[in-house]
């Protein structure tokens, strides 16, 4: 089994001198293929910083991050953008679909960025949309969808370019309990069927049933939470 994400001694400090604030403090994490990990923590604990660093959006002050075996160190902005496109699938809070694209086009757009052939993209989009049971809504705009449907489109969009790993930022924040659980179950299903990995950041402890491991972000490091399950 290969590691999809490896974080070694990652530290992120904001500010300098006395006012410096260390958000990530020598954090270590390894996520293997087929693993679905949840990271818990109250707001302000550094979850966003953790996700940004892991997602190649933020360069850590020190430490090393490897995505699908590839080190993020010494990569310039353009290379990181390319890497995010090919290796990472993002799910944002409140889905964050583009309001002016129809459901199917949301997927075709990321495929187009990755220079997938239009024909291939169509097939892949249809496959994902059918599996996530949103195929009938493919010609709708996001404003016509419910919150749960939007997040399902977001899952499909995140998996579109067959990334190595999926990062989900509070995917259930805007959903009620049962729809939230449904969305998490779908992420877990995709991780298993595609043989990929996923990291979900959340503050909602009711959403953890399908996660392989649950970690707490405390004082800048991740702690295994045995007590919870």
């Amino acid at each position: 089994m290969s590691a999809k994400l490896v974080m070694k001694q990652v530290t992120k400090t904001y500010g300098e001198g006395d006012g410096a604030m260390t958000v990530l403090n020598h954090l270590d994490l390894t996520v293997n293929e087929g693993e679905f990990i949840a990271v818990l923590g109250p707001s302000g604990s550094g979850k966003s910083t953790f996700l940004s660093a892991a997602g190649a959006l933020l360069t850590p002050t020190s430490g090393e991050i490897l995505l699908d075996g590839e080190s993020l160190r010494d990569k310039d902005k353009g290379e990181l953008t390319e890497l995010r496109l090919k290796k990472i699938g993002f799910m944002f809070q409140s889905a964050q679909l583009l309001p002016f694209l129809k459901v199917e086009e949301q997927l075709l757009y990321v495929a187009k960025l990755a220079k997938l052939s239009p024909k291939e993209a169509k097939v892949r989009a249809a496959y994902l949309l059918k599996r996530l049971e949103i195929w009938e809504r493919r010609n709708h705009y996001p404003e016509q969808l419910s919150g749960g449907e939007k997040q399902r489109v977001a899952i499909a969009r995140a998996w579109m370019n067959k990334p190595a790993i999926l990062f989900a930022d509070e995917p259930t924040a805007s959903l009620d309990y049962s729809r939230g659980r449904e969305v998490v179950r779908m992420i877990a299903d995709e991780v298993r069927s595609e043989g990929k990995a996923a990291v979900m950041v959340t503050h909602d402890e009711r959403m953890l049933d399908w996660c392989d491991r649950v970690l707490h972000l405390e004082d800048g490091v991740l702690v295994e939470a045995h007590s919870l399950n």
Partner: protein
Amino acid sequence: MFLAIREMRHSKARYSLIMVIMLLVSFLVLFVTGLARGLAYANISALKNMPANYFAVQSDADHTFRRSQLTDTELAAARSVAGEANATPLGVQTSTITAAGADVKADITFFAVDMTGMLAPEVTEGAGFTNEVQGSAIADSKLEQSGVTIGSTIRDQASGMSWTVTGFVKDSSYSHTPVVYINQLDWQAMKQGTVQGGGGSGKANAPYNVIALDVTAAQAGQIADQLQSVEVITQKQAIASVPGYSAEQNSLMMMIVFLIVIAAVVLAVFFYVITIQKTSQFGILKAMGTKMSYLAWSVIGQVMLLSVASLVLGILLTLGMNMGLPDTMPFELDGQTMAMTSLLFIGMSLLGSLISVARVAKVDALEAIGRTGA
């Protein structure tokens, strides 16, 4: 363009609105340009249609034809350089005429020319006359509209002389007045009285105003060097010095410049506001791996599409409007002017869109994480 087009499809009302504004401004720009050109042409078409590319004027005349006085000596000198056919005298006299048998009183400008030389008017209606005939004239067709016909007798109020109109020419105005062409014989007769009255000798030929030249730049320089107190100016300079011409064109030019600037500012501000509204979207797009160059082309593409589309409609509207304009309203828009104006308009729009592009460049992909957003 994938994003640009779909976004416009989704927000039709928003983008139609900006297109209507741009359409109106581009129409206004083209229309005022056409009017400015039309006015210019109506003002000085007689000069513009002359085959002369240089004019010799008295150096203290400020390039103004009517202030200049040149004699046979200067003409001979100019001809020695340019050749007999390429230098010809021109007399200019503004006056008021009345026409017998018609209730006409009109301000006109007499052009005294050599009827066999290069300035001889090209008659479009009726017939010309020779240098030896006295009492004949060719008038601009605008006089025809005020009731003068071929065979009419027109009388100069100042000198009391009369001419029979033998033909008409088209597009021959000077300082917004129709031009009446007479030959040098009548010019001498008209001027002798003045010269004698002024206490002159009366024997010498009455002076001309300017000498029209069809020469190379080198020859023009040579003539200017040879003749003291004579300046050789280009046709452009001569036109710019026609009384009222510069003032008229400058005001219109200022309007056009302001219109183009306003169009650019309106578009720039509109797109900037839209861009600010979409900040979170750009963050998401960047986080997902969209290259900055792609986003920049998306913004520029939208501006291009909008400005080109509204410009095309603006051109059609201008041409349509032109067909409905009355003849008395001078309007002239040639392809070259139109192309230049259009390019300027699109160029300014693109310049304005760069502000939005700069704004998009500043958006950090990090904004996508941890935002509840819309």
